């Protein structure tokens, strides 16, 4: 069989495509849920209409985004069994539990309360409605936590033993799976990176409108919220990334060596800026490096030894038997750099923006602007950027909205490809994980179906986002300003509606007890 089309290869491609695609929506969902909830909280607390308009605007973009996040997530849960049945048999006892927790705790939260939030504007009192979006936000974080704990177990299996009789991994310490350092650091890194994505998304779209001088009041507030989120989360992402690289060095030294294309062990080890190598020969032909930095990243010490790919490969051969234990080095190397490069570029643009649009008291009086004016981009106390440079800043800020998504995609490609040839590090090889009963043709069909369907949905989604971004924040209606005061009903003294869930519906008299405004249209309907 042609190796390029081996079921294992196809199953890996399918998993890669569907997972990277799914994860385009995840960081935005996590961060926009919380940011929307924050804006709605500001509306409830201050009563300022700009916050409500911002809530509705970002909330709509959040909903367009989460719709695809939810449906592509279903595939994730099914394809372990569909394409990786031997994996599922081997690890189900350990890996299944966090997945089930995720569904039972997080998914139910998210899906139920998102329905309440979408349709609840004219059915729920203000504060209960606000609590719904916060519950969704908590649900997204819980969901991330459980699935990342499961993934961390694949990176660094703990709390299990191999049952000789059944020949599978069995759980003996669930608490260890949920709280091991890998899981905690990965959760920290992923969540902070998610807020980088959400912050950049807000910055990019706000910049798009401010550049044109439209919807200024709402977009000015959104810009500042986005910038603060982007920069704060960016700093924390760097901190957590550093912690993660230390954990990774301890637990998966091969991944660290691959990330740096460090072929031979070195002390001190350099951080590579650019390398072009020959994988078959096992060395780099071109290398530009910062001396000692890799040693620092690995062990907080500029002179410690970092083992190289070739030595680690030999160690693995001695331990696990003959074979090639090297991941795809160019993918790991460039994946690592794309992640850091795009992520940090976005944060740098954010930091610059945070300075340029700083608070009034740091500016000369002629540079100060009101809440409904496009802010000057002030370089120093007395000097603002000229029109050309300002335009360039806004343009770059718009572009940056996609950077964190590129960064997180490469981050996942790096961390998953860097673990190869293992699916569970040191325990189960990827080639032993595929479904033996699923044919090459079947995987080819499913991969094509998902790829085509996802491509079409991507086009639809982006166009829809663009439409609502361009439309800007909606004008408020009377219903928006007068939220209901009791559950299930309209404002003030509106009378109750239909007969509810117990079955004494009278035929032929729909609504004799309903007052006039019971016929009022729903504030939101599909």
């Amino acid at each position, binding site marked *: 069989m042609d190796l390029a089309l081996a079921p294992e290869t196809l199953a890996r491609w399918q998993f890669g495509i569907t997972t990277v695609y799914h994860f385009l929506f995840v960081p935005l969902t996590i961060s926009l849920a919380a940011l929307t909830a924050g804006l709605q909280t500001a509306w409830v607390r201050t009563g300022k209409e700009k916050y409500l308009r911002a809530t509705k605007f970002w909330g709509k973009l959040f909903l367009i985004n989460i719709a695809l996040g939810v449906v592509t997530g279903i595939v994730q849960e099914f394809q372990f069994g569909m394409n990786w049945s031997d994996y599922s048999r081997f690890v189900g006892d350990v890996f299944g539990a966090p997945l089930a927790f995720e*569904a*039972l705790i997080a998914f139910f939260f998210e899906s139920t309360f998102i329905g309440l939030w979408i349709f609840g504007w004219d059915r729920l009192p203000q504060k209960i409605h606000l609590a719904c979006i916060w519950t969704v936000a908590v649900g997204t974080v819980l969901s991330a936590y459980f699935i990342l704990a499961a993934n961390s177990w694949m990176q660094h299996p703990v709390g299990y033993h191999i049952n000789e009789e059944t020949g599978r991994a069995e759980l003996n310490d669930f608490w260890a799976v949920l709280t091991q350092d890998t899981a905690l650091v990965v959760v920290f890194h992923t969540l902070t990176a998610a807020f980088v994505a959400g912050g950049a998304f807000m910055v990019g779209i706000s910049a798009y409108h401010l550049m044109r001088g439209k919807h200024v009041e709402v977009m000015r507030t959104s810009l500042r919220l986005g910038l603060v989120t982007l920069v704060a989360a960016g700093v924390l992402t760097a901190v957590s990334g550093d912690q993660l690289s230390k954990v990774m060095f301890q637990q998966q030294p091969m991944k660290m060596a691959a990330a740096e294309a460090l072929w031979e062990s070195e002390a001190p080890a350099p951080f590579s800026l650019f390398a072009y190598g020959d994988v078959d020969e096992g060395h780099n032909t071109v290398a530009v490096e910062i001396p000692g930095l890799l040693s620092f990243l690995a062990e907080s010490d500029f002179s410690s030894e970092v083992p190289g790919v070739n030595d680690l490969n030999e160690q693995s051969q001695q331990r696990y038997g003959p074979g090639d234990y090297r991941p795809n080095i160019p993918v790991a190397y460039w994946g690592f750099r794309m992640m850091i490069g795009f992520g940090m570029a976005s944060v740098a643009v954010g930091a610059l923006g945070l300075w340029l649009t700083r608070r009034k008291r740091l500016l000369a009086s002629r540079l100060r602007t009101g809440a409904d004016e496009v802010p000057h981009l002030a370089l120093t106390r007395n000097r603002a950027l000229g029109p050309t440079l300002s335009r360039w800043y806004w343009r770059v800020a718009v572009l940056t909205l996609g950077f964190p998504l590129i960064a997180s995609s490469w981050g996942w490609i790096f961390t998953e490809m860097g673990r190869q040839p293992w699916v569970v590090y040191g325990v189960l090889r990827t080639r032993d994980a595929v479904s*033996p009963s699923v044919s090459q043709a079947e995987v080819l069909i499913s991969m094509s179906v998902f790829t085509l369907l996802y491509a079409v949905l991507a086009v639809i989604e982006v166009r829809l986002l663009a439409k609502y971004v361009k439309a800007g924040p909606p004008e408020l209606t009377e219903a928006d300003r007068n939220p209901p005061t009791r559950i299930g009903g309209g404002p003030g003294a509106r009378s109750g509606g239909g007969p509810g869930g117990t079955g004494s519906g009278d035929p032929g008299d729909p609504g004799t007890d309903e007052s006039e405004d019971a016929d009022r249209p729903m504030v939101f309907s599909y």
Partner: protein
Amino acid sequence: MELHDLWFVLIAVLWTGYFFLEGFDFGVGVLTKVLARNRPERRVLINTIGPVWDGNEVWLLSAAGATFAAFPDWYATLFSGFYLPLLLVLGCLIVRGVAFEYRAKRTEERWQRNWEHAIFWCSLLPAFLWGVAFGNMVRGVDIGPDKEYAGTLLDLLNPYALLGGLVTLTLFTFHGAVFTALKTVGEIRVRARRLATVLGCLGTVVVLGFLSWTQVERGDAASVPAMAVAVLGLVVAVVANVRGREGWSFALSGVAIVALTAMLFLALFPEVMPSRLDPDWSLTVRNASSSPYTLEIMTWCAGIAAPLVMLYQGWTYWVFRKRIGTQHIAESH
């Protein structure tokens, strides 16, 4: 009762919850073409399930996740064995979810019509396919000594399983029709009741046929009462519907779905996927289950989470208890 028996029951409960809840929203999806006569009516139907369909679907994710955790071999054999049908189900669930969320996001006629087609087909196909899948699971499929599925796609399309598909499709559509009668006002409510009577009679016939066949093939003393409740529930649901007792009718069509699912799981127990090649190769609650430690943790989780879920999902239905009609649908968004 050992833990793996308890988990067999809990997974049955999760599937039952899924069929009860998503059953009516699949049914409503099918009715958008069968019952609704124009766009406002279609929108009334879609909005009766608008706030709840997503939460209903999570019952499926929980059933799948719990099967993975509690019976890894069951999960592995089922999902890899029924590969292409499940791919079709997945494709439908993806498009259907997006269709609900995106349909109203543009006002163009063509855009909305396309998503409406999607809602119809992507409700109809899974409603049918789940019956086929369960039919095959109960009837038994070719499972080898390595616990792997050894049959082909065509083996899954046997008469018994196809009848199972027809059963779930009819039953869910009936369930959706009585739900519509319960949740709407105006002319559509009257027509929903009329259609429900027809669907209910049809459903009673196919359910009786399918469950009798099941009883002969795999039934025992315990499955007879479940079968009786399912058929009786349907008959009384139709009578209640004819007499205009919409709440009773919906409750009873729900009882029928619960009893039908219970009957299928009773017919399975203690096996979870019987092998037609050799009974020794069947997957059972014993040889497919996780370790007692994992099951214990899962029991704690489910014991706390499941009642809570039922509580707040129930609350959601109460919040959106008002009936809706065409007058409640705003012009456009």
